[in-house]
């Protein structure tokens, strides 16, 4: 029996020739990641172990959640991370002004690469499956231990093959693909499993689409969401990744517990209704208009240049509806700067959007766009749980950048087709 992509990466890092689903293995890690919420408890765990860091170039500390500090307590968290990073000479530590959202900057800077094994104390660490790596979220204890040992244990996951066919229409993005998939298999449809993408439709997806799709694998319960390595991956990582890397390819006789097929050409713009990412509906099927109070465009899911481009092209020459706040958050300094150069930031400000420095901020109800009772937000973020963006009686509707920008203009959930 051959191996799928997850099995190949885990086997290689366990130092054995093959593994199979269900097996428990201890693996060497290529990168371990934490942010300003999860690093402080991990540092406490690490210090309790009493060993040096396993490799100061294989630890990434990215203060992005409550930073620039929203209050005194979050300034204390940032200080713990900053002091630790300087004391241990952590190579991939980024200070304000240089920091972006973790899952935007790690691929952007080539810190994660094909074939790599990464754990991160952040559930959206699964994002790096887009560049053909195995990466998964863990808690602070695993992370603190890994900073000392450079190892973690894994149960080799069973895999679901997601076969993509066809080409998506204009105004459809990776967000519509992943929300459609989660809507179909459910928020625990891939629990304990990996999603492995395959099929000729993969070639029709940009790297931004793939990063968005892998990012939300966790919202189906998945441990990882991995794309095959192809010319698009190569074009993306070349010039970013400076060290040698080894892509993985699923064997023809690899085993999968299930196959899900998605015809990209049949996809329509969708939103996920409160309070689960799997409550997916086509925008066209909504019925009575849903008036909104806020729009968020950004996050580790949709804070990349292509997302900014899509939103700017729709917002350009229009105004955000009177009663709506639209907050745009480029995911990294590089995205922000390029968005300025290309005139996207002008388009946002002229339309009446607030444009923020990179932060996770509103996605998790941290700051920069918190809602009060009864308010509704269309958001390009990844979770719409109860109370996620503020008051327990506020509502988040998840969508891609096309629907978010169109909704900002019309003041209700809408598609770009409806914007004149």
């Amino acid at each position, binding site marked *: 029996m051959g191996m799928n992509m997850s099995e190949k990466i885990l086997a290689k890092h366990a130092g054995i020739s093959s593994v199979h689903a269900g097996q428990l293995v201890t693996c060497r890690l290529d990168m371990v990641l934490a942010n300003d919420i999860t690093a402080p408890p991990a540092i406490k765990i690490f210090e309790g172990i009493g060993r040096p860091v396993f490799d100061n170039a294989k630890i990434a500390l990215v203060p992005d959640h409550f930073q620039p500090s929203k209050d005194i307590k979050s300034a204390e968290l940032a200080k713990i991370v900053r002091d630790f990073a300087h004391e241990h000479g952590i190579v991939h530590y980024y200070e304000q002004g240089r920091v972006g959202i973790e899952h935007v900057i790690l691929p952007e800077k080539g810190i994660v690469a094909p074939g790599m094994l990464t754990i991160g104390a952040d559930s959206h660490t699964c994002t790096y499956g887009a560049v053909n790596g195995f990466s998964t979220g863990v*808690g602070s204890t695993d992370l603190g231990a890994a900073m000392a040992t450079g190892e973690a244990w894994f149960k080799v996951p069973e895999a679901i093959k997601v076969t993509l066919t066809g080409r998506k229409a204009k105004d459809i993005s990776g967000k519509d693909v992943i929300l459609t998939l989660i809507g179909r298999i459910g928020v625990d449809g891939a629990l304990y499993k990996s999603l492995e993408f395959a099929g000729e439709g993969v070639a029709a997806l940009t790297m931004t689409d793939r990063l968005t799709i892998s990012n939300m694998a966790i919202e189906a319960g998945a441990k990882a969401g991995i794309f095959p390595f192809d010319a698009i991956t190569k074009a993306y990582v070349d010039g970013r990744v400076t060290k040698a890397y080894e892509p993985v390819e699923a064997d023809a006789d690899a085993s999968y517990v299930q196959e899900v097929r998605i015809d990209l050409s049949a996809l329509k713009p969708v939103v996920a209704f409160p309070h689960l990412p799997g409550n997916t509906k086509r925008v066209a099927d909504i019925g009575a208009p849903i008036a909104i109070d806020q729009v968020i465009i950004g996050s580790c899911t949709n804070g990349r240049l292509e997302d900014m481009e899509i939103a700017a092209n729709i917002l350009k020459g229009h105004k955000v509806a009177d009663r709506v706040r639209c907050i745009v958050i480029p995911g990294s300094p590089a995205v922000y700067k390029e968005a300025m150069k290309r005139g996207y930031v002008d388009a946002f400000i002229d339309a009446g959007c607030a444009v923020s420095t990179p932060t996770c901020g509103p996605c998790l109800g941290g700051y920069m766009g918190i809602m009060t009772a009864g308010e509704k937000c269309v958001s390009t973020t990844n979770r719409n749980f109860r109370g996620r963006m503020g008051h327990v009686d506020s509502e988040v509707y998840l969508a891609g950048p096309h629907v978010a920008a169109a909704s900002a203009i019309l003041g209700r959930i809408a598609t770009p087709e409806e914007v004149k």
Partner: protein
Amino acid sequence: MKHEGKVWRYGDNIDTDVIIPARYLNTFDPKELASHCMADIDATFAPNVREGDIIVGGRNFGCGSSREHAPVAIKASGVPVVIAASFARIFYRNGINIGLPLLEIGADALKIHAGDKLRVDTATGVIEDVTTGETFHAQPLPGFVQDIAAAGGLIHYIKQKK
């Protein structure tokens, strides 16, 4: 370990945002986290939970964020064990790592009700519902994960191995 306590019953897909909302994540002090535990789904939990009480959930308990603050908040509330139909993967791992036993019992979770008195043996996975007289058996932990749990969590396990 054997535990006896009253059940706090919750449904499917209890996410870590309702277990401990992000607005309280500017600290990692267990007692302070416990004071906000379950705030966005059950405001009566934190003020009324007693040492030894047991949380029983449905499918996919602990889904969402990887924040270890969620199992920490539950443990610091005095809850010695969580039982559910199934657990989200990262929450499950975090529970084992911090020494909060988690027992998975599938559809049997539906047979346990709020306020029931349970006797739980985390070593054998046997759960006795004293109120209804029913007994349930949880899945055993796989392989060396049992050793991590028996050591009281990952850090104790690593220190033992050293």
